[in-house]
């Protein structure tokens, strides 16, 4: 994910038109399961319609993947738009459980018990 070719032409990928050709989030892209939510900040009037749509969908916590599905846009596009919104202070994120904790047995047991309670 970090070594995207920078020479890709925007015109090759139509959805990237709405990111103005950007396929790079300027940092590590948000993982699909990262939770995002709109802040209380007022929307600046100059927002692009796609940014605006994201904010209207994010009145509660949603994952990046869900935002993409609700918007009907590929996650890779939504990741770019969300990064903009994070940078502007219009979206806050709750990052996924860090990989270092994936083998944390306490966390895994919690998931296990949560699943068992659904039986």
């Amino acid at each position: 994910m970090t070594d995207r070719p920078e020479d890709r032409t925007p015109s090759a990928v139509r959805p990237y038109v709405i990111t103005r050709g950007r396929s790079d989030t300027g940092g590590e892209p948000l993982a699909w399961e990262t939770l995002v939510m709109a802040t209380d900040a007022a929307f600046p009037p100059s927002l692009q319609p796609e940014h605006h749509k994201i904010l209207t969908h994010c009145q509660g916590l949603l994952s990046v993947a869900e935002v993409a599905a609700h918007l009907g846009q590929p996650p890779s596009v939504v990741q770019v738009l969300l990064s903009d919104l994070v940078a502007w202070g219009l979206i806050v994120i709750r990052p996924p459980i860090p990989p270092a904790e994936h083998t944390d047995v306490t966390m895994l047991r919690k998931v296990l018990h949560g699943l068992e309670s659904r039986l």
Partner: protein
Amino acid sequence: MASKAVSDDPDRASGQPGPHTGRTRDTPGPGTQPGKYVSAGVVGAAKILVVGPLGVGKTTLIGTVSEIKPLSTEAMMTQAGAGVDTVLTPGKTTTTVALDFGRITIDGALVLYLFGTPGQQRFLPAWRDLAKGSLGALALVDTRDLAASFDALGNLEDLGLPFAVAVNVFPGSPQYTEHELRAALDLLPDTPLVACDARNLRSSVQVLIALLGHLIDTAPPEAHGLVPPPAPAPASAPAVAPAPAPAGSTATESL
């Protein structure tokens, strides 16, 4: 059914549009359906991949256990089909792959996403990003076409992602013994292999439980001993290392 998590959880953020969200005119779906949002108390998310060939029941299983209607999104793949897919436009190597996913809120504090991922080798690039940060994977197998699952299993092994195998039993599927299946799929002895009915909640949750059990069993030993290390020993403590046990006396249960 104990799992009513979806509909009327008071904790859940209400779908009420905020003061400045009057414009939902061109939102593709209903923007305010109940249960759309993750419970406000959730502090983090984890994910599990559900992998397997087309038609093996990935979306069925995800829909069975998910608290939301499974959603679909199209991941873009670049350079993916090289040498495999026929690319009509030379130089254009972007294609999309549909991924269905669902979610399960655990304990009100953690949300688990299940991403259905097509198994074919040519989708491996799309997997890499998804696999990154996954707890593990569930590989679905249809005994009517075991070979169709080989790619998915191979991809999991390549990625080093721990997994459990679930045989989605279709009516009239050939019956094999566990031994035969393990041999055919070339599974490691400790890889869980369970039968399931992806349409059945209990059965589908059971296979996820088998996967979690496997993840716990294979967690590195130090992860089990996550008890805090001995409290800061008094500065005068002469030795930090535990006294070496006399050889032989503590020989761990050898098999």
